[in-house]
């Protein structure tokens, strides 16, 4: 197979040795059909066993391999080497602490994810015998886009508000809250509202919109957040008018 030599500059950070990250260059003979992840795997297998990064599916669905490639957060299994020149710069996702090399610490996101109650809260429990909830294709369409999130965290890496203040619940978690809110089977919106409509929730988002631009799954978190803002604001104002703004 024909190959092309590409210089891959990888941000390395080995917590036991390094006080701060540095770039290390590798020359990789890349095949035409390779994605950036293939080049990293080549480095790992042939050049340097000490390079650490996460990956699993190689088909952009597990969400493990988010990295910043030439300045943009993206999935390394979805981005082809052939789309770059002779030099590719690979860094860990921005806005997260670096655990090691390209591996970031994502505990914060995992907490945020569960804080928005991302599960169906039905009006009443339904027995298995009574079968499925009916949901038309149109009703499905209303929230389907927001179910596509693979938790790759590219959006968090692109969102400056999260970078400036990591108390922000952030795009993917808020989009997920919206996914359930918009599901015809769900009535849990008010249960999610305390977190979603808090200072740290939707109101911390200033609609930079970068999250949607970098999202590899077209989840459109920016849109989900704006739509949530709208319904939440209406809720808040009607609540204020009718009940003196309880919360």
């Amino acid at each position, binding site marked *: 197979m024909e190959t092309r030599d590409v210089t891959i500059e990888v941000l390395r950070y080995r917590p036991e040795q390094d006080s701060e990250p540095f770039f290390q260059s590798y020359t990789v003979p890349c095949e035409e059909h390779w994605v950036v992840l293939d080049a990293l795997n080549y480095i790992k297998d042939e050049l340097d066993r000490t390079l650490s990064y996460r990956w699993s599916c190689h088909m952009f669905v597990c969400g493990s391999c988010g990295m910043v490639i030439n300045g943009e957060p993206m999935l390394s299994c979805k981005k082809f080497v052939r789309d770059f020149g002779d030099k590719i710069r690979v860094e860990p996702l921005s806005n997260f602490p670096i655990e090691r090399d390209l591996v970031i610490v994502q505990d914060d996101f995992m907490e945020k994810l569960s804080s928005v109650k991302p599960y169906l809260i039905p009006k009443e429990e339904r027995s298995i015998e009574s079968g499925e909830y009916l949901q*038309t294709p149109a009703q499905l369409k209303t929230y389907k886009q927001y179910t596509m999130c693979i938790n790759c965290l590219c959006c968090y890496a692109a969102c400056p508000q999260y970078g400036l203040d990591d108390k922000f619940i952030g795009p993917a978690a808020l989009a997920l809250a919206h996914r359930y809110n918009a599901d015809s089977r769900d009535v849990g919106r008010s249960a999610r509202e305390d977190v979603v409509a808090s200072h740290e929730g939707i109101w911390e988002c200033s609609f930079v919109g970068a999250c949607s631009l970098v999202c590899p799954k077209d989840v459109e978190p920016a849109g989900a957040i704006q739509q949530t803002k709208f319904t939440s604001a209406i809720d808040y104002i009607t609540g204020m008018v009718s009940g003196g703004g309880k919360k």
Partner: protein
Amino acid sequence: MEIIETDIAIVGAGGAGLRAAIEVAEADPNVKVLLISKVYPMRSHTCAAEGGAAGVVKDNDTLEYHFNDTVGGGDWLTDQDAVEYFVNEIPKELTRMEHWGCPWSREDSGKVAVRPFGGMKIMRTWFAADKTGFHMLHTLFQTSLKYPTIERLDEYYVTDLMVEDGRVHGVVVMEIRTGKMTLVRAKAVIICSGGAGKIFPFTTNGAIKTGDGMAMAYRAGVPLKDMEFVQYHPTGLPATGILLTEGCRGEGGILVNKDGYRFLQDYGLGPPDPWPRLKAMELGPRDRLSQAFWHEQKKGRTIPSPWGDVMHLDMRHLGEKKINERLPLIRELSRLYAGADPVHELVPVRPVVHYMMGGIHTNIDGATPLAGLYAAGECACVSINGANRLGSNSLGELLVFGARAARNAVDYVKSTEYLNKVKTIQAQAEDAQSRVKALFQSQGTESVPGLRKELNATMEEGCGIYRTEAEIKATCDKVTEIRARYKDVKLEDTSTVFNTDLLQTLELGCMIEVAQTVAVSAFERKESRGAHQRLDYEKRDDVNYLKHSMAHFDPDGDPRIDYLDVVITKSQPAERIYGAGAEGQVV
């Protein structure tokens, strides 16, 4: 060493592990459950499943049909009591998934939609576009967050099972980001660690599918059952092995050779028209389709490509609208990775290693012969798949048996105390730890990627779609050699923080053990059945081999193989008929 106590430890947080954890939490909130996974739950490979999950819901369908399809599809190497339980339960489980929010695709009426799948007499595969596993996994994971009693250890690698007095009493885990090892004391352990496709070079399986749980149980003395049955999926993209779901054919896609001819009609699957017809042509079972490809290749009627010969998957007649709605991921994958847009072009595909029918031997309860040890999902072999799994049965399997294993584990732990031999327990755990530590000290010369490549190559040689005695023998010998050389493996990364070199080394150890059971079981089975096809024994041999093979661990030698009878309740072995003959067929 630090000790964590729990009642039930679950190894693996894929579909099976999550379903099991939820079942424990629902069954009894007082039972502590610890869900351990080497990757974050939503990274588990269940997310890669595309096509769907089969379950009888429509009026034209019956449980009996699903039973017959599954038993026949598995070439009668299935345990029929388990299959019967499975087909009964799966509609309920899929409905439960719906109640938990799974975004199943719908009919206009609002009811869930179903699509046809290979080897199924009736359309019965529930699907969520072409990302069924992904949606199921995320639904399960997100639902699991509702239960405060489910505790998790994300990115913890389980290295060993702790066994004493003929019962399991915990696992040893390594926190990947610190390298720290901890003993998890548990009264019961459920292994849900997924498959082992990575023992082959060309596979749809993700990097994490290295058979760890299988190896763990096997080393602890639990036999691995029916390991010779490795499923090749007929339609993987060349170069990457990325899967194009059977749903492509379910929706009406066809397979053609280099002359544009639908060659499946030459292999007992025809006639080609009218199309689509269930259980015929492209909707035949996977083993038959992959085997037909092999023959076409031998006849020189396939298309050469830089990554081996291919056939063409033609979906152009489905039209853009249908493809976008039902197969959006397939379109994206084909365009990106094969440079072919299925709306306008033929997509090159070839058979690719996909699924392990075999696994940790369990009974219908999900229990292994070792007290306190359960297994479910792809790592287990409860024998509903037999010699060939029907597409869309495994997503159902991990729900049904994940839940069942969990319920039984709950019952078990309620009547069991922690093993009380503190010294022995400690010593065992320390032992496990020193084995890992020894790797850091090793002055070996063998490289992990090197051994892995050799292992992959020999597995493809000897345990491919068609097998012969000589080839399997060579593979057996080679794996034995690799296993010996592995003792001399060199760790190049000595960090304790997120050391992926170490992980790959441990995983390779598991892959070698599992590979050996595949090769030796294949060698011993001198017949052709389902996915195990031998050119030197072309016929199915029910007299000698209507039995499960059981591979037992031997620390120094090759695995020992013995056999276990298949459970037959109502369907006597018969010929598997597809194509025209399948129409009026009872079984």
